[in-house]
Structure formats: C-alpha cells, structure tokens
C-alpha cells in the first residue's frame, strides 16, 4: 500500500470522512444557522409560498371532488338514503311492501325508513284562463306524483328543510301538494323544451293533477327546492290521498328509503334484506349502487382534473423552490467555495440546502394543514359553496393529504438538491475568487 493510500485510509478511519451522519450533522448545523440568521421576511415569504402550494395541492382537487361529492350527498340525503328499495323491472310497485318494511324495521342498524308511492301524471296550471286560440296547448307538465308520509319522509330525507315558499305538508292535509321548483318557470334559469315548466304559479294557487285518468284540483301548499333534479321535478301528496287517487288499496309502495345508524355498513343491511327475500320483490341497492353512472364518471373526471391541476401547482412550487435555493446558493457561491476549501464535504453542503428546503416544506405543510383542517374544511362543511348543481364541500381525506404531503416533500427535496449540486460542483478556487 502506498503512502497516499495509507494516509487516506487513516483519515477515513480517524475523521469519519464520508460518514452520512457527519455530513448530516454539518449540513444541519449550516442549515439551521442560515435559516435563523437570514431575513425573517424572506423566510415568511418562502413559507407562505409553500403554504399556498400545499393549499393548491389539497384544495383544488378537494373542491373539484367535493363538487361531485356534494351532489352525491344531496342525492343520498334527500332522495336515495343509505339503502334504496325500488320496483323490480317490469313491475309497477313493490310486492310484499309491508313484509319488506317490517323486515327492514327489525334489522338492527336501521335508524328510520320512509315509503313512497310514485305514479306518472300531469300537472296543469292556469286552466281557468281561456285559451286565445283553440290550437293553443294547455299549460301542463308531465311529472311524477309522489305520495309520502310527511313525518317519516322528513325524518329520513329532511324534506321540510327544502321548502323555500309556503309550508310543508301535514299528515291530514287534504288536496294540498308540494311542488318541485323545477316544475315552475320562475325557478328555472334556462328555457329548454326538455324541461317544460308551469308559468305564473304561486303558493296558494290551484292546479290540476291528472293521474291514472283521474283528475283532481289541488292547492299548492309549498314549493321545495334542492339540488337534486329527482326531487325538484316531483309533486308531493300526502300518501293516503294519492293511494285513493291511484286506487292502490294493497299498501304496496314504489320506493322505500332506509336511513342507517352512524357507522353501519350499508352492504351488511343490503345483505340482510336480501337474506330475507326482499330481492324477490324489489330491487335493493345501496346508495352507491343506485348512484347514476354519469355521477360516477363525473367523480372520476373531476378527480383526474384535480390531479392535473395539482400537478401543475406542484411543478410551479418545485420551480419556485428551485429558484429560491438556486438564487440563495449562487449568491453564496463564494462561501460554498470557502467551505469546500477548508475541507467541508460537498455532500454536507448539499444536505444543508436540502434541509433548508425541507424545513420550508414542513412549515408550509403545517400551516397548510392547520388552515385546511382547522379553518377551511370545517367552514365549508358548515357553509358549502353554492354551486349551481351542488353544495360544494372540501374533500380532504387523511390518506389523500398524506400522499400529497409526500409528493410535495419529494418535489421540494429534488428542487433543493439540484441547485445546490450545480453550485457545489463548481471549481472551489473559482468560487472562492469569484471567477
């Protein structure tokens, strides 16, 4: 072994040269001093940028997913419930409805249920006003007439809260209805032949209901508005009256909606109902099964869109960190040269810059998490964003957030390392002499 080799070996042994622990120790020493003694406003600005990046990562996709999630929740809360039981194909009602209702009521985990009668029909307004010409059409709209028990319906779907004009139905109301807002032109912000609507109908006006060939004149007691088209295009009667109107004397209903206790798995309840032969007489679906396909597709689409926008945000953040660290390193090129000159390992200097970027990312993430989970999410849960077709909430799960944090850290790590590496790699003497 030559003298050179033996000396280097000796150095390695005695000085722990190349030890990651030593490099990390020196890197951390330099990084903490540099952060501590740099301009406070520069630090605040960088942390602010990191916070905005974190918010961009979590909130943009969270709101996009939340937009759909809001629509799904509205359908679940006001229409489908946790379990939705409906007519079998080619059947006009659920046979053995009483048996299914009794079974459902006896399953532990079911909190409440409501049953609905539904029938296609027509609603006509302004029929007392003479037509100008014999060829003029009636002011009528095809719709679905729904018979409900106002008390149980409200308990399961909170229908009462959706009344925007007039009053909610009482069990003994006679010849009174609730009208969905999308059946009235004044609540439709668009004019489309696909969505015919009644003109000049207000609470207290009388309208004609035609169902199964029977016609009845009823009073509009209230108008309901949700962001669920299935609700807003319906007419609600008290169930015993609609039963009489459609001649349904067997108490067989068309829809049964179950609300489950918190934490109960809907699939288990569905299995329990199927095990009790409910599947022979009705279609038993969880809310997720009954979700329309376009909602599922939109959910995926918005998630992809959110990820694309987050990726752009992430790239911008990585470039920002890169620029910040690069400017920092390039303006300190001379001192980096001095450190190398006095024997500080390049890896320790690189680690100092990486640790600085990670420090900014950690603080930005902490501030971002406090804002998301302490302020923005609770606020949006309480006051959802009023989008035209849903009440938008913020979907920010722990797993999703952790993944985003990991991505942000990886981007920060790389964005801190590359500029440090570029500057550290430069010739030591040129750096010291500023050449």
């Amino acid at each position, binding site marked *: 072994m030559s*003298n*050179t080799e033996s*000396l*280097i070996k000796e*150095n*390695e042994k*005695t*000085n*722990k*040269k*190349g*030890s990651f622990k*030593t490099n990390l*120790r*020196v890197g951390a*020493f*330099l990084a903490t*001093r*540099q952060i*501590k*003694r*740099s301009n406070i406003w520069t630090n605040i600005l960088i942390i602010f940028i990191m916070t905005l990046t974190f918010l961009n990562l979590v909130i943009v996709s969270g709101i996009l997913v939340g937009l759909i999630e809001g629509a799904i929740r509205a359908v679940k809360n006001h229409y489908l419930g946790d379990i939705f039981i409906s007519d079998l194909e080619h059947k006009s009602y659920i046979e053995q409805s009483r048996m299914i209702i009794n079974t459902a009521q006896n399953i532990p985990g079911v909190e409440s249920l409501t049953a609905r009668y539904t029938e296609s029909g027509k609603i006509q307004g302004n029929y007392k006003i003479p037509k100008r010409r014999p060829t003029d059409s009636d002011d009528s709209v095809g719709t679905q007439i729904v018979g409900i028990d106002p008390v149980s319906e409200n308990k399961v779907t909170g229908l009462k809260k959706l009344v925007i004009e007039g009053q909610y139905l009482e069990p003994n109301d006679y010849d009174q209805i609730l009208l969905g807002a999308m059946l009235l032109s004044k609540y439709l912000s668009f004019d489309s032949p696909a969505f015919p609507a009644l003109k000049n109908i207000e609470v207290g006006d009388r309208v004609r209901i035609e169902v199964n060939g029977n016609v009845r004149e009823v009073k509009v007691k209230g108008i309901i508005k949700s962001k669920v088209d299935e609700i807003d295009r319906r007419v609600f009667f008290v169930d015993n009256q609609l039963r009489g109107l459609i001649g349904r004397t067997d108490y067989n209903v068309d829809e049964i909606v179950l609300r489950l206790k918190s934490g109960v798995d809907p699939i288990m309840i569905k299995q329990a109902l199927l095990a009790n032969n409910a599947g022979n007489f009705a279609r038993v679906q969880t809310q997720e099964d009954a979700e329309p396909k376009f909602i599922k597709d939109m959910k995926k689409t918005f998630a992809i869109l959110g990820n694309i926008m987050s990726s752009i945000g992430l790239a911008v953040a990585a470039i920002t960190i890169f620029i910040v660290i690069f400017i920092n390193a390039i303006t300190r090129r*001379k*001192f980096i040269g*001095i*450190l*190398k*000159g*006095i*024997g*500080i*390992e*390049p890896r*320790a200097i690189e680690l100092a810059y990486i640790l600085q970027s990670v420090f900014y990312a950690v603080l930005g993430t902490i501030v971002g998490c406090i804002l998301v989970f302490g302020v923005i999410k609770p606020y949006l849960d309480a006051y959802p964003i009023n989008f035209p077709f849903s009440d938008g909430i913020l979907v920010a799960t722990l797993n999703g957030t952790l993944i985003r944090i990991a991505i942000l850290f990886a981007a920060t790590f790389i964005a801190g390392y590359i500029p440090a590496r570029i500057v550290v790699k430069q010739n*030591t*003497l040129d750096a*010291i002499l500023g050449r």
Partner: protein
Amino acid sequence: MIKAQKLVKKFKSGESELVVLKGLDLHVRKGEFVSIIGRSGSGKSTLLYQLGLLDRPNSGQIIINEIDVSKLTDEERTAFRLTELGYIFQDYALIPELTAIENVLIPLYMQGLKNHEAESQAILALEKVGLKEKFSNLPSQLSGGEQQRVSIARAISHKPKILFADEPTANLDSETADIVLKTFIELHKDGQTIIMVTHEPEYAELTDRIVHLSDGIITGDKIKS
C-alpha cells in the same frame, strides 16, 4: 515536508495562453516559516493554491509528507485539506451567518469530533489568537483584524501540519497587521509550518526564509541563519 517539482500552471484567456508558473521547484522543511514575495502577477498566490491543494497544476508534482498529492481524487483532496492543511485568506473568508466560534467549529464537526471536544478545541484556538471575549459575535460585528484572527483560529484549531496564508495583512491597518504577524510568529515558535504570501517586505523579513518569485520562477531564496 513539501516538495514541489517542475510545477507548471497555465491559464487560457481566449485564444492566448498565460503561463503563470514555469516549471517551478520548491522544498519547504517541517517547522519552517516561509514567505513568498513578488510583484503582482508574479504567480505567488497561484503557487500557494497549488501547494494548498485548492487548484491543480497542469504538470509537475507536489509531495506533502511523502504523499504525492497530485494523484489524489477531489474527495481525497478535500479530506486532506480538512485534516492536514489550514488556510488564511486575504479577505478572511468567514461564513457570515456563523458566529466566531461557529466558524471555528465547522471544520472540527466535519472531522467527526464530539460537541464538547470540538468546542474545547475551538475555544482554545480563539483564546490563542486573543479573541476570548468575542466568541458569539457574527463576522459583521467584528473589526477586520478580529475577523482575520477568527480566520487564523479556524485554520489552526485542528492542528494542521501546514498553514497557508494568502496576504493575510493586506486588508489590515499596520497596527492590526502587527498583531496578526505576532500571532504567526507565536505559532511558528510552537513548531507550526507556515507558508505566507505577502506584498510587504518588512513582514517577510520576520520569517525564516524569503522566496522571491518573478514571472513564474523563483529568482531568490533567502534563508535566515
């Protein structure tokens, strides 16, 4: 201790080539205090950078303590500088966000010394250069002379075999420069090998040996008896 043989260093400037060291030979013995003097552009700083492993000559050989350092890789040169050599630069070259003691501590930490060992060595070095009271001051809170003494403390804290000083008094007033020179003389009395580049003949006179450089070659080598 140091043997430089046929050292050549060239710099390219556009099309032309400037030869700064022209096959220079120099031998420095252990414990010597050598000053290198010469006019601006004579190659004295360039020679110091080659000897101090901060730069690589185009040709020639440098042997330090019987080790051919010309053959070392960049990583090995860094390790060698850390453990065997000490530097004092003209402009002090302190890290601005580190206090006096932290500037001295950093190479000691890099050597893997434990906190208390590193601290006691750093304190000892700072005391040796007369900076007992100013451990916690940032470079911006120190005068030029004090900064240069911190730089000396950093260079000697790990007890290097050779100390390189590149015009250490150039930025100092004569009173402060005298203090710095006295520090070097004290270190030399303790057996420290020192190679110093200087413009000042009166400071060179205080050293054991004066090497005169002109146009990339040694034109004079005066050893005091």
